[in-house]
């Protein structure tokens, strides 16, 4: 079985963007490019959910999963959101395949519970073995400052979770706003997330929140990689996964 690849952006933020293009628009475009955008909104205890509508909207447009949580729940949420999004994407792919096989507009509900079970086995299997690229974008604007230690921990934890799979993982980590630019690189594609603390300590947390430009940077970064990367990339433009060979 040749392995496909899933591409995700994981955006961790606590509020409204206020610079550059509309992040929801950029997310919509990323989705067209086969990259799923997941968003996690982080609250401190006592904070209200205002400004969290954007969180939902970006994920909706980006074909991903969103969740608003308190910092204490961050670790488990980050890994669940990532997994849910994987499963969701794979379901989409499998469903597409099914339509091909059944030759008609078959939806999952039309399948008997038995058949659904078989589909799920395929999705489980794929979710375990598929290659995954996660581009992590962390909002480091002033209000995020107290939340960053938990973010750091959650990301290390995500790496533990995903590296317990059989499939391969690559992570990249960028922060926004950067010192001079909108976005700043912390970690280029690598199979593990470790020793982030130094990166997070170096930070100067700023006032602006250029979420849209940050997402655009994610796209560029993915594109650079896809060009020099695998030969089969772009073969299936409308799938967020390269053709899985099952």
């Amino acid at each position, binding site marked *: 079985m040749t392995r496909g690849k899933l591409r995700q952006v994981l955006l961790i933020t606590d509020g409204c963007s206020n610079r550059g293009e509309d992040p929801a628009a950029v997310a919509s475009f990323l989705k067209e490019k086969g990259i799923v955008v997941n968003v996690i909104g982080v609250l401190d205890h006592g904070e209200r959910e205002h400004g969290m509508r954007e969180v939902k909207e970006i994920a909706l447009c980006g074909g991903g999963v969103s*969740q608003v*949580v308190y910092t204490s*729940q961050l*670790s*488990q*949420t980050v890994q*669940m959101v990532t997994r849910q999004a994987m499963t969701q994407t794979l*379901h989409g792919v499998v469903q597409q395949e099914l339509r091909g096989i059944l030759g008609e507009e078959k939806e*999952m*509900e039309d399948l*008997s*519970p*038995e058949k*659904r*079970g078989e*589909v*799920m*086995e395929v999705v*489980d299997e794929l979710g*375990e073995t598929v290659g995954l690229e996660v581009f992590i974008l962390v909002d480091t604007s002033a209000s995020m400052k107290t939340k960053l*230690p938990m973010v750091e*921990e959650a990301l290390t*934890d995500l790496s*533990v*979770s*995903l*590296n*317990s*799979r*059989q499939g391969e993982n690559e992570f990249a980590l960028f922060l926004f706003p950067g010192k001079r630019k909108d976005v700043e690189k912390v970690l280029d594609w690598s199979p593990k997330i470790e020793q982030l603390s130094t990166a997070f300590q170096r930070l100067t947390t700023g006032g602006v929140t250029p979420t849209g430009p940050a997402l655009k940077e994610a796209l560029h970064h993915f594109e650079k990689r896809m060009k020099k990367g695998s030969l089969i990339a772009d073969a299936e433009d409308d799938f967020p996964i390269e053709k899985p060979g099952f």
Partner: protein
Amino acid sequence: MQKTTFQSKSRVSNLSPGTTFTGKWNRNPYQIIKKLGNGANGTVYLVATRLGERAIKIGENKMSLTSEVNVLKHFSSLGQHTLCPVLLDVDDLEIAGETYPFFCMEYLHGDSLLSFTRKKGQEWVPILLVQLLGDLDRFHQAGWVFGDLKPDNIIVTGPPMRVRLFDVGGTTKMGRSIKEYTEFYDRGYWGLGDRKADVGYDLFAVAMMFIETVYPHRFQKASQKKQHLDDLMEKVTSASSLRPYKKVIYRALTGKYSDAQWMKKEIMTVIEKGSTSQAVSSKRRSRPVSGRSNGIKEKKKPSYRTELALTGSFLFLSSILYLVGQII
């Protein structure tokens, strides 16, 4: 606990008692008696069926229960009946144009593990863990890891008292990554391993449950990069009812056991030692340890009376244990 954030309220999370419906595919009739609880993937109800009282779990969306059903089906087909609730029906429920999946299973009547041991006494804990380890061993032999092992997923039915596992949402094939977990029982959270499904993953959770029976409030790990293992072991040594099991717990926390049977044997050995090395009274006294005072930071010398009563009940329980051992 964290899981609830993932759940949206929907029509099927609050069906009122008396509601009746018929499955879409198999046409079996059901009547809701009461809600048993809300889970991460669905809502569980006690229902009346033609064959008597059963439990059903209704999912929020079309695929939400499929993994669980697959696992239950697998074990039902193996004839491993006591490992998880017996699966009786899998179907869809249609309400107001929406379709929700559900499955029907055996109704497990009893107390959750923690409320049981708090009511009946700490001396039950090792006995029930021995039963549990027997079940886990059979899970492992079949090539599966339970995954999301925690007291909320264990019911004590009976008499005769018997632990039963339900909620197989986290049950994962050996070698894959754990599907669902709860941080407190997760070795990844404590920095003591990864989340690959192996025997050690479940046994770690067993050790954490053991510790939790004495510390009623799930504590959190200390700030980052601390020696979590030392912290945990300190909790063990400062609780008199855990101290005899220190070695066992340590081995489970550090992944030293290659199978559940081994851990089970070692717990049994400690139970037996506790009941023979100490004195005489074979008369079983009334409850020695009351609900909460499970011996956290007890005075150096526990009272003689307590000790005596404990010994008595250990003797009694180890004979039960022997019988149980014969059955499982």
